[in-house]
């Protein structure tokens, strides 16, 4: 058998008895040399990682100077391209799974570290990590962020985003939909599923915990064919999104998909400026009536100041009732001084269907609502320069 390459492991573990056993098993458990260094707390561990390049980190999450998911996030940030293997007690399964979802390469239950496969599992984790590195390098996208912002609450922004994402996905595009809501997210209800992780999982830690790995792990593929990051589902997860977090979130998102559609709340916060600044197109969702239009007109100057260039601001008009005797779309466009991407007829009767079925654009593709959504989705895909060529 050919000699396996030398393996270097940093063990970050505060309990000397556990550390002693792991070191022993690694040193004596196989025929090939393993270099094991031991750090008793996170600070020392991070120092060691700065000093030399270890292939794998064996990490206890609960250390004297750091606890839980934060420990993992710090180490993952420090060594984004090295195998991180989480050590856990029998009762911390949930924490370990969370770490694995967020990009840990493996987790080991401490009571099983006497196992003859310890070394093997570490080698596998190292190998998987190496392959993952090649993989993500190949798959990086240069996608577009398109944000949607209601001129006022209740305009129908969330319905629009979900259906547009489904339409783009069914046209073969790689799509992510993100719900940037500070409070209860409605994506899950509209898509009729319960997310196991949501945006709160990503926002819980320091900004640097938002990485390509953690992000990819928090995105969930839904039946409609796109990946979603839902807004917080539980009141205790409601928290504001900082500008730093938003910049990272969407900077990464556009590398992971062709289109990232963002449901932006109709409030102004530092994070909104970041999203709008990063968006190839910011779409104001306007109810086609006097109140809706006035609300939109009032918002336009602020939005204009945030967009990278004037052409990256547009509007979608929402007809809340079947027959409108208000301004024509082009008159609305003039009042808003931006292009109109489309006019969406009422979806009220279709929304009820959405409770049990796929988004209406997929379940009733021939309805006027769906046809209008498909038209907008076509416009989004014709190319950045001509998105707004009405």
């Amino acid at each position, binding site marked *: 058998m050919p000699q396996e390459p030398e393996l270097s492991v940093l063990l970050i573990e505060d309990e000397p*008895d*556990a550390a*002693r*056993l792991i070191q022993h*098993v690694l040193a*004596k*458990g196989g025929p090939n040399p393993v270099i094991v260094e031991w750090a008793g707390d996170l600070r020392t561990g991070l120092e060691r990682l700065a000093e030399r390049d270890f292939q794998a980190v064996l990490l206890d999450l609960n250390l004297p100077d750091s606890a839980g998911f934060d420990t993992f996030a710090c180490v993952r940030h420090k060594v984004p391209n090295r195998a991180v293997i989480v050590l856990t007690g*029998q009762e911390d399964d949930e924490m370990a799974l969370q770490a694995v979802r967020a990009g840990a390469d493996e987790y080991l239950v401490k009571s099983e*570290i*006497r196992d003859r496969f310890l070394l093997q599992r570490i080698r596998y984790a190292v190998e998987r990590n190496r392959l993952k590195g090649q993989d993500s390098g190949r798959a990086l996208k240069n996608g577009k962020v398109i944000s949607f912002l209601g001129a006022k609450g209740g305009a129908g922004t969330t319905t629009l985003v979900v259906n547009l994402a489904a339409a783009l996905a069914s046209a073969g595009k790689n799509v992510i939909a993100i719900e940037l809501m500070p409070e209860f997210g409605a994506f899950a209800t509209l898509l009729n599923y319960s997310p196991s992780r949501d945006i709160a999982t990503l926002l819980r830690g320091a900004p640097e915990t938002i990485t390509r790995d953690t992000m990819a792990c928090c995105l969930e593929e839904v039946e409609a064919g796109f990946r979603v990051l839902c807004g917080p589902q539980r009141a205790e997860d409601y928290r504001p999104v900082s500008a730093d977090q938003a910049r990272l979130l969407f900077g990464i998102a556009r590398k992971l998909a062709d289109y990232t559609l963002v449901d932006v709340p109709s409030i102004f916060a530092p994070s909104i400026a970041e999203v709008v600044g990063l968006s190839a197109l910011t779409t104001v969702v306007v109810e086609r009536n006097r109140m809706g239009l006035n609300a939109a007109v009032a918002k336009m100057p602020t939005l204009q100041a945030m967009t990278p260039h004037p052409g990256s601001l547009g509007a979608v008009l929402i007809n809340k009732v079947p027959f409108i005797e208000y301004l024509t779309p082009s008159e609305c466009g003039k009042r808003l001084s931006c292009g109109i991407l489309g006019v969406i007829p009422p979806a009220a009767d279709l929304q009820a269907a959405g409770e049990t079925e796929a988004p209406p654009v997929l379940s009733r593709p021939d309805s006027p609502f769906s046809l209008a959504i498909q038209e907008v989705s076509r416009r989004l895909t014709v190319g950045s320069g001509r998105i707004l060529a009405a």
Partner: protein
Amino acid sequence: MRNILATFGRRTQKHPVASKPQQRAGRKTVFIIEDNPDSLRAISQALGSEAYHIEMADSAESALRKLSSFQPDLILLDPQVPAGDGTRLARRLLADEDLVAVPIIALTQSSHSLSGALPVNDRFDGHIQMPAEARVFSGQVKTFLEPPPQPVSNQSPRLDLSHAATSDRRREAAALLNLIEAGLPDSQFAPEVQNSLQLLADVVGGLQHGEVADYLRQAARLSNAATARARSRFRSVIRLCRELADRDPDVVPGLADLRAGYMNHRSSEMESLEHALKNGDFPTLQRAGHNLKGTGAAYGFSELSDIGRALEGAAKCKDNATVEAMLDQIESYVSIVLSTPVH
């Protein structure tokens, strides 16, 4: 390792059996550990009319020293000896393999039990309320000296090694141990168990599984002892054997030494845990429980993980009595492992 044990107050090796005092007289030996000279005198007078051989000690230190030279039939212990150190002494005596069949009776001060200061738990084999009338007292001692009725077991886990290939003996061992474990508590007293364990110990000992062999011999010795301690110790030893037999022993060389070292750490940690309990330092106890929970099973001592879990929980809700009981269990478990020679 004997040196390490000695420094932590465990008993050292006994003198040869021939020199034991009770062997000469054929009388029962009662060992009284009491620091109050008046009580000591009163007790020995109360027992004077009986044909006992009486040994006495007035401190934990002298008790441990004296116990290395003779084997008592009954121990009467004042848990307040000396100045509150009796609990620690009791813990060591209760964990001592050589005393596992000897009833240990607490001399309970009635003033204490009335105030509820002494937890009533089953760590002792019995309690005698003090002060007591001489006749009542001597009657109670007599009762405790009578051998307890031994449970009878009808089932008979039996090992048949005649056809087993050498490579299958570990599996044979695991099968027998599973059978005994499933039949607890009765299986301890099954007619064939002692022989089977002894036989198994000889066989696996020859297969270089020295550690298992030693535990099996310990289990064989315990198989007819009926005290509550002996029973729980038997259960622990069987579980420990089964755990070892379940594993492939050749995985990582040098693990036995590491395991012994781990137990030595537990042993040296005990003093600080007792100190923590005395001072109500529950965070220390909780942390220790947490660490035991995490490391015990990793070293192949899964019962220690269970004890650690219970200790962590008890320390978290400041449950003195349970913490106390868990320290007893740790001490006892440590003594199971450390009373076998190191390989």
